[in-house]
């Protein structure tokens, strides 16, 4: 019970000295104000009002030469936690896309680079990674993130620090919640997705309905107990589903793991009279449900639908039998690798092959990040055109993203919609798995999703 304040002090003092020796001095306030920035709302004077080709360079006075400069894209995601199955390819997609852009001359000569941090799927880790990035670099231009939880948690920080974020986590709170506004989606928000898909199911009920089902569409929402898993059910989407005449008869959760057991959830749904199952998860989520439905002998009793991430090659790593995947319906807000006649897909395929990525990474994450980097690159170019490289800040990139409006990344592989207060796409296809892997068949072509943003 001796007190030793002194030793404490000495050690802490040493610690402090050591720490301060490690870190370079920095100004106490991390966000500098850009010195002489033109009004940010100004449209680039010579920009054509018509849809712009992604590689178009609208410059009268000739592009600036930024050779020797580096522009950094900060990126974090989950390489080691529950979402790792899909995040690995996501990161490789970003790396390879950046490499391709740099080989093609970069952004006016400036080289792009990606700095990645693994968060293990934890929101706290994501926040810590955000803090690390913003303290290393007091002029972060863009962040790419993954995971609804971290997108929601960081939305206010992005606004405060004026850093635009491209998010693959599509919870509506992250984009349209209070204190959000700098987050842009790499897909329609989940309420839009469930609304869009359920509308299709209701419209085509006579064709889709299971043998013993009645005329009423009764939905069981079986999903993960996470921000992502619960992201599709909001006040707006519930109201929209009610208007469609869809009754939600069960809301069950299961573990974020391919080892989860959904038997009890399925049986509860069945007991509640459900005939449609929606799950808002990554591919191993529906895989667990499809496996259990089959081993319970109940596959024929349900239409199974899910969010866009579910219809992916990674699904097959978890299905007990590839045939179990047949019939899965999801929104599909991008093209697929099998659309080989599309130049954007050809471009992605070239990058993929050039880097000798394994076949298992031929998935949605890779493709979407190639598109995402294209969006970032175009936004950088626009921002440099508008404010000049020396004034390039996160805020300038934010303005540029908004001005991109209905931008078609990679010439249409992905259709962004960032104009007029929208920060997520509102167009998608619907696809159904018909047959073996990659038979992701379009059953409804590009069309508008309902707009189920929260009303603030």
């Amino acid at each position, binding site marked *: 019970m001796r007190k030793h304040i002194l030793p404490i002090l000495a050690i802490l003092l040493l610690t402090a000295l050591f720490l301060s020796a490690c870190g370079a001095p920095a100004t106490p306030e991390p966000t500098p104000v850009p010195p002489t920035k033109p009004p940010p709302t100004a449209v680039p004077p010579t920009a054509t009002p018509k849809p712009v080709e992604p590689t178009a360079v609208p410059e009268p006075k000739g592009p600036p030469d930024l050779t020797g400069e580096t522009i950094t894209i900060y990126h974090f995601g989950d390489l080691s936690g529950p979402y790792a199955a899909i995040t690995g390819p996501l990161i490789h997609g970003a790396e390879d896309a950046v490499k391709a852009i740099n080989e093609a001359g970069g952004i006016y000569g400036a080289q792009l680079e990606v700095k990645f941090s693994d968060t293990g799927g934890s929101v706290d880790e994501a926040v810590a990674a955000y803090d690390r990035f913003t303290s290393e670099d007091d002029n972060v231009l863009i962040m790419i993130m993954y995971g609804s939880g971290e997108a929601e948690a960081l939305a206010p920080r992005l606004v405060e620090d004026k850093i635009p974020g491209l998010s693959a986590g599509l919870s509506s709170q992250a984009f349209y919640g209070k204190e959000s506004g700098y987050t842009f989606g790499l897909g329609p928000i989940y309420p839009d997705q469930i609304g869009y898909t359920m509308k299709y199911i209701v419209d085509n009920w006579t064709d889709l309905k299971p043998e013993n089902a009645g005329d009423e569409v009764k939905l069981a929402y079986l999903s993960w107990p996470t921000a992502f898993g619960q992201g599709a059910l909001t006040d707006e989407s519930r109201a929209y589903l009610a208007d469609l005449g869809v009754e939600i008869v069960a809301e069950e959760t299961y573990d974020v*793991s391919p080892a989860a057991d959904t*038997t009890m959830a399925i049986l*509860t749904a069945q*007991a509640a009279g459900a005939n449609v199952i929606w799950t808002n998860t990554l591919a*191993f989520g529906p895989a667990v449900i499809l496996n*259990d439905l089959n081993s319970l002998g109940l596959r024929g009793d349900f239409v199974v639908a899910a969010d866009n991430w579910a219809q992916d090659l990674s699904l097959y790593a978890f299905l007990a039998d590839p045939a179990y995947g047949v019939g899965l319906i999801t929104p599909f807000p991008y093209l697929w690798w099998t659309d080989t006649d599309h130049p954007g897909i050809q471009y992605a395929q070239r990058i993929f092959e050039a880097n000798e990525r394994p076949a298992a990474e031929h998935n949605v994450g890779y493709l979407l990040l190639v598109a995402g980097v294209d969006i970032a690159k175009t936004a950088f170019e626009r921002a440099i055109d508008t404010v000049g490289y020396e004034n390039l800040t996160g805020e300038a990139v934010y303005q540029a993203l908004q001005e991109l409006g209905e931008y078609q990344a990679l010439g249409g592989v992905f259709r962004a919609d960032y104009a007029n207060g929208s920060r997520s796409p509102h167009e998608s296809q619907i696809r159904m798995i018909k047959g073996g892997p990659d038979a992701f068949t379009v059953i409804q072509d590009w069309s508008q999703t309902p707009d189920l943003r929260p009303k603030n």
Partner: protein
Amino acid sequence: MNWQLLPQFTISGLLAGGPIALMALGLVLIFKSSYIFNFAQGQLLLLGTLLTWWLAVGLALPLWLAIVIALAASAVLGLLIERLTLRPMTGQPLLSIILMTLALGQFLQGMALLLFGGTQRNFPQMFSAANPYKIVTPFIYNERNIQIILKQNLVWSFVVAILGVVLIAAFFRFTRTGLAMRGASEDHELAQSIGLRINRIFGISWAMAGVVATVGGVLLATSSGLDLNISLLVLTAFPAVLLGGLESIPGVIVGGLIIGLSQGLVSASTVQFIRNSAEIMPYVVLMIVLLIRPEGLFGLKRIERI
């Protein structure tokens, strides 16, 4: 209560208790011989299962061979852990030993992630995923007899798990080594004085715990799939161990079944909040046990001396 689901969930819950009992057995084996509660049992299970996966999928060995090799390797791992990390701790206070197994768990979890990566993977199937067993009960609901549907792997995992527990119990009862281990668990000093090699017995019990863990892990993984979080499933076995009484082998079966049953029963509730409580039921049961009968159902009350 969803009455029509009650028979189904009662049976499913009980069956789910089998693997829980098997995991609990691993903990009891070690505790019985050395009074160490092994918080790293989950990681032992994880490594054994990952190894099986790697041999069967990575090296494309036949599954039975992969399992045999992995079981042998787990036994060695168990021995090594005992020798390298717990033997030096002999005589240390309870906290240090608890911390040692916790630290070991962290270390092994990091190791697993480093060696195998965090991706989820499919595990080779041992039981048919289709053709569930169906039992028609005499209970009538909505003018139909209530049917109980049981996945094949659930039933067979249960059978294998219970068989494993019975085998180990028989080993303790009828073999020389088993008898020696029982003797050692009664009194370490006494056992040593009559010539039992106490260290060897600790080693054997750790090796057995490693084997049991791997069997449990393979059963769980073949039912659904494998990721690093499988190590957390052992946490549901902790309450089963306490419920059964820390040193009782029959206790683990009863404990496992009660834990499984409690999870099944709350799942049949019509209230979602209660249904969701299935994941913490083991710990709710645990708190009740601690408050009412801390020595468990089959455990012994100890007389304190001063």
